[in-house]
């Protein structure tokens, strides 16, 4: 199974990553791509700053990917998570799941992002339009619930 996990500050290309997953093969029938973007929170936000735990971020996402691979008949899987300063409209995270059929691809992509949200060691802080550094984003209970539906 093709598995790609990258933690980087640079932007990524969802198209190039999808092509890398599917090129030259005839067994992939479905690719689901989730892209998480930075919102401007109604104009209040100038940027998000993403801190991460190098080493553990890759390891933890690897463990989450392995769970997904054990659970669904996947043909490929890509997770790219950015860190550093990210402006509204920019991409933060990409999850790709490829399978022969759509249900496995949808479920695996949804599982991966639910787990990433609550298990991958990343923390967001807001930088506001008024120039101040805002609070660290608080964990959402909705994200915990989203993860729990998989167990």
């Amino acid at each position, binding site marked *: 199974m093709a598995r790609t996990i990258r933690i980087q500050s640079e932007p990524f290309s969802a198209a190039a990553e999808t092509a890398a997953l599917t090129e030259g093969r005839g067994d992939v029938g479905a690719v689901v791509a989730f892209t998480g973007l930075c919102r401007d929170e109604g104009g209040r936000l100038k940027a998000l700053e993403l801190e991460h*735990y190098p080493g553990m971020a890759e*390891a933890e996402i690897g463990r989450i990917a392995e769970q997904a691979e054990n659970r669904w008949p996947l043909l490929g899987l890509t997770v790219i998570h950015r860190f550093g300063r990210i402006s509204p409209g920019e991409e933060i995270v990409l999850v790709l799941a490829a399978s022969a059929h759509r249900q496995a691809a949808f479920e695996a992509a949804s599982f991966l992002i639910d787990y990433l949200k609550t298990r991958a060691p990343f923390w967001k802080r807001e930088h506001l339009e008024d120039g101040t550094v805002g609070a660290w984003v608080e964990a959402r209970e909705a994200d915990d619930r989203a993860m729990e539906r998989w167990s």
Partner: protein
Amino acid sequence: MKLVYFAWVRERVGRTDEEVELPEGVGTVAELVRWLKGRGEEYEYAFENEGIVRAAIDHVHVKLEASLAGAREIAFFPPMTGG
């Protein structure tokens, strides 16, 4: 043993990492937290709500009861907000 801190735990402690010698009797993550809180008010502040701060041993999430035996790097951080 290396301790590393992230996000507001790092800010409250006032450092990104440090090396510590564990005294006798500190065998679990919970005991480490208790010992750290005795070292100064920055630690007291960082760990004021023990139910909130998360821990990892050598890049793996652990609970407060986890043993420190064999650990090289202990991390403390708030609930994750990536994705």
